[in-house]
């Protein structure tokens, strides 16, 4: 009784099936998302934190902002450069980035995350935009 042949064949088929999505998508990587900046965001020129940091750490920053605002009643954030901002997702972040669909959603969809900030924080545009 030697089933070596069968086992090896089975393993090869199994490996091929498991890795199929990788072969199938080879060379077809989904393009990284392009976010659209509003005129206001462009005019501001810089964000609360440097671009690379805000891109990867905005969730940590928002977490700190929320606790500081709600628990301690402090409302002003002074960044490393010494510039002051109001700590508010609704009134600071979403004031510049008032294009939820073309800004927030693009990366979140790409990264397959589904934050529900906008269930409560109103996805601007504010009047006149």
């Amino acid at each position, binding site marked *: 009784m030697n089933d070596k042949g069968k086992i090896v064949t089975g393993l090869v088929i199994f490996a091929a099936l498991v890795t199929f999505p990788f072969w199938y998508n080879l060379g077809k990587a989904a393009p990284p998302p392009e976010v659209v900046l509003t005129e206001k965001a462009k005019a501001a020129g810089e964000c609360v*934190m440097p671009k690379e940091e805000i891109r990867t750490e905005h969730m940590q920053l928002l977490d700190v902002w929320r606790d*500081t605002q709600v*628990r301690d009643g402090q409302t002003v954030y002074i960044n490393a450069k010494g510039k002051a901002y109001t700590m508010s997702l609704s009134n600071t972040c979403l004031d510049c980035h008032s294009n939820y669909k073309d800004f927030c959603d693009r990366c979140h969809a790409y990264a397959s995350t589904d934050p529900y900030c906008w269930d409560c924080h109103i996805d601007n545009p504010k009047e006149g935009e």
Partner: protein
Amino acid sequence: MERSRREFLKIAGVSAAIGLGTGPVIEAVAAATGHQAAPEAQVAHHPEALKATRWGMVVDTRKIESAEQIERMVEACHKEHNVPMLEEARHQIKWIWETHFHNAFPSQSTDRISEHLEHTLLPVMCNHCENPPCVRACPTKATFKRESDGIVMMDFHRCIGCRFCMAACPYGSRSFNFRDPRPFIAETNKAYPTRMKGVVEKCNFCVERLAVGKLPACVEVSEGILTFGDLNDPDSEVSQLLKENYAIRRKTNLGTGPSVYYIV
């Protein structure tokens, strides 16, 4: 069979060792990339923020002449805080509302109360109790008392909608969002968030306004009926009013220590 089992154990041992070994590496990498919100940044209070050690409200019931005066307060508060207008009574959300003396003060009403009190409606809201039962009931610390100024606040992000706080509050100051409130807000104030279905809400003594140097919205439109200030400051307007007039609080026998006083 013998051998394969040995092999298996060996491989398992090696994998476990690798698994254990990577922990510190991952931590070191995380530390090197500085995985925390900008450490050099600072936070501060708004320069005009109003501060107190125990905020309180005094309602001068003698000045109430009509129900419209109270409706104006309700409107100002509900507009400011995106409180939805729901028709069905059991779905309604209220931060401040009007009620009769015998409802607000069930243990203080007698068979003969002054005509004025009997016929006027009084504004009622969260009492921002000194010893708040809602805070003790809340399992998530979504409801908490700010030690700095005595305001009983909610962090809506944390609320899981268990409604223990509603059962614990003896004043019915809290409302639950049985439905998504958004479609029922006639005119949204974009500076303030809304709530979502499954979250409790109540009067917050306008913390967001105090933080930028403004008095509560209801006080501003109250035509002198409401006075807001620091109960611990003997020179504050509220302390003066309480020194010169007889005032009562709601259900004091329960030991909650309300911070809302009614001059009768």
